[in-house]
């Protein structure tokens, strides 16, 4: 929650730069960002579907408010599915879908959920959605279901989903929550794909399973491409610690470029 407040602050700072000439819009958006609006207000009903504030819900999580590198959510699954590009893409799409659906449904229910059991309610909604989708896929799209089966557990326990429900969907209207869910799912997916790209390329010399660096044969004389020159894959890349190190490097690069993301030392 502390993290979230900080981001809200930095977001409204940015907004001031964007909307200097429209002061009326400013106050509305400031109120919306800082005060927790529980019901859809009149001004919001009039707000366009793709207003600047709504677009930011989609684009902010891609960089300045990225769930992995800035909010530090969902690290565990980022370790598990980033050895290859393909599962990372499948996982990203699945998480975007589940986040959009669960944010939307939790937001619809937000005013009737008793606050003492809200975490359990969120978990039940996520788990029920994932289980239902899995049942349907198993019956009608069996191959997709087989692909996704190992991710089901990872999605249900993914802290991003619950983190965003708790921080956003519990207090914002459905449409905004839907956008926030999609945005954060995409931000998560972006990092997943970058990490998987690096790990698959350097760890096994392939991308999406294609041997783009040449073929490594058991007998060095049969190898082609880079391997014929004596190149060897970095086996470390396949192990979980390298995912953390790669994410660490990404966070470093991101904060070097966007210095406003750096927290002040207490």
């Amino acid at each position, binding site marked *: 929650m502390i993290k979230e407040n900080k981001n809200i602050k930095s977001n409204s700072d940015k907004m001031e730069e964007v909307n200097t000439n429209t002061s009326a819009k400013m106050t509305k958006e400031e109120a919306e960002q800082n005060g927790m609006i529980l019901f859809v207000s009149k001004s919001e009903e009039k707000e366009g579907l793709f207003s600047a504030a709504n677009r930011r819900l989609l684009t902010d999580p891609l960089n300045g408010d990225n769930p992995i590198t800035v909010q530090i959510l969902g690290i565990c699954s980022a370790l598990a*599915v980033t050895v290859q590009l393909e*599962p990372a893409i499948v996982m990203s799409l699945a998480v975007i879908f589940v986040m959009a659906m669960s944010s939307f449904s939790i937001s619809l229910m937000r005013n*009737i959920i*008793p606050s003492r059991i809200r975490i359990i309610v969120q978990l039940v909604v996520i788990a*029920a959605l994932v289980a239902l989708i899995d049942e349907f896929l*198993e*019956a009608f799209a*069996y191959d997709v279901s087989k692909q996704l089966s190992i991710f089901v557990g990872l999605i249900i326990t993914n802290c991003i989903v619950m983190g965003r429900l708790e921080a956003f969907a519990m207090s914002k209207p459905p449409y905004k929550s839907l956008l926030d869910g999609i945005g954060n799912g995409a931000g998560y997916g972006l990092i997943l794909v970058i990490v998987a790209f690096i790990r698959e390329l350097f760890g*096994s010399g392939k991308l999406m399973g294609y041997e783009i660096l040449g073929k490594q044969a058991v007998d060095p004389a049969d190898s082609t491409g880079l391997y014929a020159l004596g190149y060897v894959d970095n086996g470390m890349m396949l192990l979980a610690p390298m995912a953390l190190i790669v994410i660490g490097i990404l966070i470093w690069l991101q904060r070097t470029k966007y210095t406003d993301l750096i927290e002040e030392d207490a």
Partner: protein
Amino acid sequence: MNVNSNKYTFIFAIVMVVVVATALAFAATSLAERQGINHRAEKMQDILNAIGLKTVEQDGEEVFLSRDLAEINYEKYIVEELSLRSDGSVDESVKAFDVNLGQELKKPVEEQVFPLYIAEMNDERYYIIPLYGSGLWDAIWGYISLKEDVNTIGGAIFDHKGETAGLGAEITKDWFQDSFKDEKILDKEGNLVGISVVKGYTGGNDKDDHAVDGISGSTLTANGVEDMIQERLKHYIPYFNENTDVKIEYSSN
């Protein structure tokens, strides 16, 4: 209405649980039949893949053996389904195809049923043995076929429930499964040695060393594959010794 009162919280929790449970139970039961058809077809597909049948001829064209084509081709190539007891005798009361190996393994060995499928393809006989064991995280399973000499592997396929994507999950890839083809499971004295999955394998294409190349970063899954082959095959040896012509031929000496 006070949404934070004790009464409301209890009622909300109860209603939520009932609604979600009903929805899930309804979905699970109403879709069970369709899911069952998929599982059955996949099992047939797996069994046929284990004898190396990955494409079939359909209307004069070579097509991928999809789940839709599995049943027709299963009828065509599988000539016998047997349920064996641990002493090698045949148990006529059990239908081999319906045996759930995961359940079966929980019983003591004397009470277990060992399904065996016999296929005939291009005038060659294959014995297909279902495998089941545990990988690093969860169950792994597969099918391995033996050629007529009951020593040479005709093909193998593996699948898993929850191995790590990109590491342990690589056992489902063709390159790994293809490396089992033509390996031998018996040593020169006719003892079962199985197949070792070796880290940093340097044997190249040596098919007589009872070993294949492993997968970097998935030693524990590979050990699971190794143990599963060894453990399952040993129960079929009594039947093979009685009923088949076991031949041990090594090219090297």
